């Protein structure tokens, strides 16, 4: 794989001539802008960038990014993207999916793209609802969600996207919020990670699930509800007055008060992005009484699938020649009427 060539672009360079057709006020607009703002900062080359999506509101994303784009079929974007990366590992692939596309109909492919560790950024827009089909409950909808298909409340237990990703073997797991100013930093961390980088983005569906994340995403009081993680930094929130400590008896986190900024005295733990056990605990941390962990939960690279495929190919090809005539006449042969060919 070649080192990516950095290109100078502006946000405008990443806009297409297509009219954006999400509902006014949809969280997708904010994510689109965050991505268009981030790509120039990464030095990405539009000609070398491919956005691949499945089906759903989120999956219209590629039409609005001036790069290569493939709007595929419901749930299958990870499989298409795997083929793209195996055919041309140099392409910079972004996968755009949603909670229904990525965890319901496409849950199987999501699991396998993560465990294989195909090098790409996977943005899962989680709005806890099926938007494009008009508001049915999704695999991340909370129990009791009332929708046209669950008029007296859904009884399904919701899936936790980050826990699913970790359970599938993901080596990079992060969380963001559509309107958060920190989202570009999360995207940059994902892009810097070599391998499948999974990002759950809480996205507000203004029509069918309005403000469902307000408890932690609303700007008012956000500091007390959002725990932005940073590698090597103590896990503090609420302006540094609270933190997460580890209770070795319960093998669980607890919220502790931090007095006068002395987080060490309070036993607040330092975030280590390579600690897989902690990542699992953070991903599963129940919101309220705990804050919502955001940012990079886990980042511990491992060899990518395509590099392993290429290495295996190189090893098995070395010293062999691709002679079609020889291949066709392989195995045991015989000649009729003494024609002189001898293939060996």
């Amino acid at each position: 794989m070649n080192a990516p060539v950095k290109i100078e672009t502006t946000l405008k360079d990443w806009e297409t001539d297509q009219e954006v057709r999400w509902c006014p006020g949809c969280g997708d607009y904010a994510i689109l802008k965050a991505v268009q703002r981030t790509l120039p900062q990464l030095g990405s080359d539009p000609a070398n960038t491919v956005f691949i999506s499945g089906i759903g509101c989120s999956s219209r994303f590629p039409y609005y990014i001036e790069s290569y784009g493939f709007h595929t079929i419901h749930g299958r974007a990870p499989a298409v993207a795997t083929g793209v990366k195996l055919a041309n590992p140099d392409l910079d692939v972004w996968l755009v999916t949603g909670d229904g596309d990525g965890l319901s109909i496409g849950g199987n492919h999501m699991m396998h793209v993560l465990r294989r560790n195909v090098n790409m950024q996977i943005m899962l827009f989680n709005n806890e609802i099926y938007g494009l089909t008009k508001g049915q409950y999704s695999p991340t909808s909370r129990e009791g969600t009332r929708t046209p298909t669950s008029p007296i409340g859904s009884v399904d237990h919701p899936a936790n996207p980050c826990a699913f990703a970790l359970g599938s073997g993901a080596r990079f797991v992060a969380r963001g919020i559509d309107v958060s100013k920190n989202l570009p930093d999360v995207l940059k961390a994902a892009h810097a990670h070599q391998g499948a980088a999974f990002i759950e983005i809480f996205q507000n569906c203004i029509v069918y699930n309005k403000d469902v994340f307000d408890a932690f995403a609303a700007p008012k009081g956000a500091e007390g509800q959002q725990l932005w993680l940073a590698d090597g930094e103590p896990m503090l929130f609420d302006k540094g007055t609270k933190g997460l400590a580890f209770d070795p008896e319960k093998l669980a986190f607890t919220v502790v008060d931090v007095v006068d900024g002395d987080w060490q005295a309070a036993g607040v733990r330092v975030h280590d992005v390579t600690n897989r056990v902690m990542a699992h605990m953070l991903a599963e941390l129940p919101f309220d009484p705990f804050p919502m962990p955001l940012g990079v939960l886990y980042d511990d690279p491992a060899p990518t699938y395509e590099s392993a495929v290429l290495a295996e190919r190189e090893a098995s090809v070395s010293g062999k020649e691709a002679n079609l005539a020889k291949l066709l006449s392989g195995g045991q042969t015989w000649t009729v009427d003494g024609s002189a060919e001898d293939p060996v």
Partner: protein
Amino acid sequence: MATQAPPASTNPPTDAPDAIVVRFAGDSGDGMQLTGGQFTLSTALAGNDLATFPDFPAEIRAPQGTLFGVSAFQINFGSRAINTAGDAPDVLVAMNPAALKVNLAALKPGGLVIADTGEFTKRNLDKAKYDANPLEDDSLAPYDVLAFDISARTLEAVEPFGLGKKDGLRCKNMWTLGLALWMFDRPREPLHDWLNKKFAKAPDIAAANIAALDAGHAYGETAELSAPLKQVHLPPAPSEPGLYRTITGAEAVSLGLVAGAQLAELPMFFGGYPITPASAILHHLARLKEYGVTTFQAEDEIAAVCAAIGASYAGQLGVTSSSGPGIALKTEALGLGIMTELPLVVVNSQRGGPSTGLPTKTEQSDLYQAVYGRNGDAPMPVIAARSPADAFEVAIEACRMATQYMTPVMLLTDGYIANAAEPWKVPDPEGFTPFPAKFLEEPRGEELLPYKRDEKGSRPWIKPGTPGMMHRIGGIEKDANTGNISYDPANHQHMTDTRKNKIANIEVPDQDVAWGEKTGKLAVVGWGSTYGPIKQAVRRSQDKGCSVSHIHIRHIWPLPKNLGELLSGFERVLVPEMNTGQLKTVLRDQLLVDAESLTKTSGQPFQIAELEAAICAYFDGAQGNEGGQVAANDQQLPSTVEASE
């Protein structure tokens, strides 16, 4: 290794048959497929023409000795051209009572049974549901019987190698193969070489197997011979000069795909998921990385096709392969390939259906699925291989159509073609016509128009990574030029018509007549693996004076342009198929021809005799014979229906 075949004899001895059918049958753990495969190779090296029919249960190791655990391998070989695996065996090798019970009905009257008495124990007879030992009563009176204790003789032969009884008995198949080699006057050396190579890491096992093989051969040669066993020498079949090998359909498809990708000057990406009987293609290609082949064992059938589509999008030749149920799963993605107009080759090795159906048995019942089986108006070319060797050319043709017309292409084979072997004259790649794929690297006019078509109706192939050519594609209806999303009514009408016409106008060769005159009373129209039995049945009927011709269709969709006119030169059209009449429907639909059906869905190939009987019914004065279901006695292997002559 190349072997010089002896020259074809011009005067075969009058008492020698010109073809012989041998069936090896035993437990699925007895190694019958291996025995058959090696016997096939020795037959090919002797210069005989041949066709084989492996028939095995879906269970890997069914309980020993049971009727449903019987595995069989039939080979028809001769000093003349061979087209089928043969209707009824002349020789049946039965390694246990169950194998005898399951296969005896197929044996020709007066045929030879070779049985291992060592396995005809009370317990095995019970498992095979025999009340009495058939070797000891007169139930085998219509046949010649050679029954002796192969098990004991094998153990005797391998005794010096210190294998236990269990391991020793595993050499039984080699002992039997040795006897068969003697019966048909074949050299043992290629087998010795093969065993030494196969068991290179276990020289004792190699030596034991060789000892068993030699002992079986020696048994035939020595005075121990029973009367029914005679040595037969079949002179080589006359065939075109050249270099030959044996090839199965799965191998031929794999090699054809490799050749096709090379002719398109593209690397190949093969996405597959294990399924019987299609997996063999994935197995073959996984070993051919040096030919620019990437194989990807996906998490499911859907991912296999989607990854292939992704690879095609990125500029490789995407290929996927499966059998009916797997093709069903891929169907939505085929629509995506059709909508985005990307090259894709889809190989369907058909098996008995519906649902899981008969995984290891053959059928041609996915033709509707291939031609009609997608949501929306979603046309794609469909082509079918007629024999293992033919699958090579057809695979190249599929690659050509996919890349030249920017479309998914369905290539139909079946379980019979996939597993059966036949001699193949190795082609010289220098003789192939290349069809290099072209990528659009800069706009043709002022504007980039990813859906603007060339004279063939194909849109340009633009690889991501190409500077200045960024664009978006997807499954939503596309604007006719820009490829942007379009819900415009007139545009959808235009695009639906365009997709239909693009496929309808694909250039396919004119239909020829496989055997017989271009006009006549009856045309027998087939497709796929029925080629061999139809050809033989038509030849035999012609010999009896019937005005019948054989037409075999490779291009099922679109059909050859001249087919309607060709068929109008015949009074009646009979379509034998291993389904309930699917090609018949297409012919009636497309050509308004009064095609009649002859159908068979027993999981077994047609026999020459049953086809011949159906053909003759048209000439017996029997009026209004509509063909209909074949009433063949083929609960097990090919039936014993006799020709009407």
